[in-house]
């Protein structure tokens, strides 16, 4: 989807530039490239996938565009929160975009993804629109959950995106349930259940993993290890921070989560593995620039120096930018222009979302029960009895 967006907009972008060297139009170029991942994979009870990743120039450009979009969306959410248009909790994903993007590129919309509350970018990756995201964040009727979910409850059923969950770790049994349903229905699809390094210590995770391994469910548990569980560093909360090994009898793979291509390779490998052999754990070594949420400054438990160092050395967008430039797919200026376009798009979506209507008061009572077979909250004024077979 991002690709088509790119192709429809990149053309007018390029024409004024008139660089003859770029006549090989970025938008339609599918030159295959093979690129090495920055770090090798570390594996537990399985073989590592190869470090060489097959990709194309258009895919790299789409990575860049989509990650820039996600980054811009999160920054916009930051300013909206400070302007008190977004209330409550707002957990931002900037720094971790490569995980969402790499995963999307390896799977289809039939594969399910379920994640925790840090779900804005995952929603976007699944095909969610900016306007849906911003409306939901601001509690408007046009939001993806009609304004009733908020930042932590983004869902997109038609794209098999199951949310969006506020309680740490509670999505892991749900994810194994999704995998169970996929196995039950004999769909050749897998479920990616994302959780953080903080949730990796939840008991229900191990319970669910046991069942998934026992019943050979196509579940892939992805630990997005950003090294901090809110304010507690991983060395202070986990005796064994090798989260990919925590599955014991379940194979695991450690991946550099700031490298979108490595993530793509790992997810492709994991999907094949899960369909044949059952669950596998992926640990994505990633980092978040913001604090845990907007209420957390993010600098009381780590130094600003650490944050800026990661930003300089490991930033996912910069990595793809360097790849694009070194492979002559686009110039620096074109990428900057792309980022400007993205910024405009995000600003337009924010402006549109600000104008969106708030939900009606009657919406308070909708979607509590499903109407239909005998299920309404009646009170003293019920007029008739219903006890017929549907």
């Amino acid at each position, binding site marked *: 989807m991002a690709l088509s967006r790119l192709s429809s907009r990149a053309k007018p972008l390029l024409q004024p530039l008139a660089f003859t060297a770029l006549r090989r139009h970025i938008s339609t170029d599918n030159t295959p490239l093979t690129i090495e991942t920055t770090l090798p994979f570390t594996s537990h009870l399985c073989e590592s996938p190869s470090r060489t990743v097959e990709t194309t120039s258009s895919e790299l450009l789409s990575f860049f565009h989509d990650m820039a979009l996600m980054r811009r969306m999160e920054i916009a959410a930051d300013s909206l929160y400070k302007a008190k248009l977004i209330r409550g909790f707002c957990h931002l994903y900037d720094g971790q975009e490569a995980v969402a993007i790499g995963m999307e590129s390896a799977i289809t919309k039939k594969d399910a993804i379920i994640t925790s509350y840090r779900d804005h970018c995952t929603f976007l990756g699944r095909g969610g629109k900016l306007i849906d995201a911003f409306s939901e964040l601001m509690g408007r009727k046009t939001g993806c959950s009609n304004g009733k979910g908020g930042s932590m*409850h983004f869902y997109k059923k038609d794209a098999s995106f199951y949310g969006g969950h506020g309680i740490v770790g509670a999505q892991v049994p749900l994810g194994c349930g999704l995998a169970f349903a996929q196995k039950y229905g004999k769909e050749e699809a897998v479920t990616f259940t994302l959780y953080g390094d903080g949730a990796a210590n939840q008991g229900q995770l191990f*319970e669910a993993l046991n*069942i998934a391994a026992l019943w050979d469910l196509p579940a892939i548990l992805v630990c997005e290890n950003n090294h901090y569980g809110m304010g507690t560093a991983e060395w202070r909360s986990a005796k064994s921070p090798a989260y990919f090994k925590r599955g014991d009898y379940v194979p695991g793979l450690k991946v550099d989560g700031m490298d979108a291509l490595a993530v793509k390779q790992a997810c492709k490998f994991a999907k094949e593995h899960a369909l044949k052999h059952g669950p596998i754990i992926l640990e994505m070594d990633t980092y978040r620039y913001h604090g845990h949420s907007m209420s957390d400054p993010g600098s009381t438990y780590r130094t600003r120096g650490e944050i800026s160092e990661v930003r300089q050395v490991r930033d996912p967008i910069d990595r793809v930018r360097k790849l694009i430039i070194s492979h002559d797919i686009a110039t620096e200026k074109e990428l900057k222009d792309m980022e400007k376009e993205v910024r405009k798009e995000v600003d337009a979506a924010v402006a549109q979302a600000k104008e969106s209507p708030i939900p009606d008061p009657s919406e308070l009572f909708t979607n509590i029960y499903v109407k239909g077979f005998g299920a309404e909250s009646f*009170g*003293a004024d019920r007029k008739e009895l*219903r*006890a017929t077979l549907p």
Partner: protein
Amino acid sequence: MSAILQGAGAATSLSPFNSIDSNKLVPPSRSSLSVRSKRYIVAESNVIKSFGSGLITRRSKPLIANAVATKRENAASSTSSKPGHELLLFEALQEGLEEEMDRDPHVCVMGEDVGHYGGSYKVTKGLADKFGDLRVLDTPICENAFTGMGIGAAMTGLRPVIEGMNMGFLLLAFNQISNNCGMLHYTSGGQFTIPVVIRGPGGVGRQLGAEHSQRLESYFQSIPGIQMVACSTPYNAKGLMKAAIRSENPVILFEHVLLYNLKESIPDEEYICNLEEAEMVRPGEHITILTYSRMRYHVMQAAKTLVNKGYDPEVIDIRSLKPFDLYTIGNSVKKTHRVLIVEECMRTGGIGASLTAAINENFHDYLDAPVMCLSSQDVPTPYAGTLEEWTVVQPAQIVTAVEHLCQ
């Protein structure tokens, strides 16, 4: 409006009415009497309203000949006059489950020992052989995880029936039931429905000890988005099981450990019971007794004594614990003007407390006496038999309460 009242009613709880000033109560007409024109106020000092004249007139009724009238109710509740077949309550549940699994391939059962073992109370006996291991799943002992898995599977369209071996074990799954089961339909803006059925036996059994005698309906009742029903006879057990499986909402079906061996004759043809409807067990005139699950039988036992003493209680098995069937209850209150709630929940924050609040809010004008609620004592259930007997409401207490209210 009704939805708001429901919500408000369920959330509050009231302090018990322990004594009634009997001088102020108007006696019911038991013998031939003229039409009564005035009512007097109830004893509580904080009750302000008074009933005007000409509200509802009472006519006298002859003494009721047959005490319990069970045959009449069974005929009323079963839809046909054919004899049907006789079975025990757990067999009725199994029949309902099996019929639904035959009818819809999306229905599956998960729980501890439901498969090869046949279910700890034999409700799922034979199903694993018939439907296979993927549809009748033996889970390891991890309530939190397998309840969550059932809910996740339901999000995609499967219809799992999750069994807690004892309702008390579902406390471990409370997070999944409250946050995911109850709320996902709402927080996703209607995108996902969670058609799960969570069922299991609860209630005070025969000296099972404190942890295995819990009544979880009081803890679950405030969770928005779920429905709760309690079965009490083989007829409504099968009907409610089938209706719960077909419902698109998450339903918690409360069974009782001591009722599994009740025998009754149920119709051969397919039927379901409405999930939000209360069951009229015994129509009457003098007082409405609201009850559910096992206490229904204590009430009916007390009703025999009461009829011999000349009272005419109307007994309603409320069946639907969330939402309450205020229509049936309200019509009954309008008729009898006195309410006694007999339940097995604890006194504090139980179903009776919410029901008392709901009745007071909605039908205050029709009440002649304060709503009285007999519940279990606020103690962990002791092991010793005599002590255990006194934690739950006994028929003798029900008789005394009715006499008190109807003075």
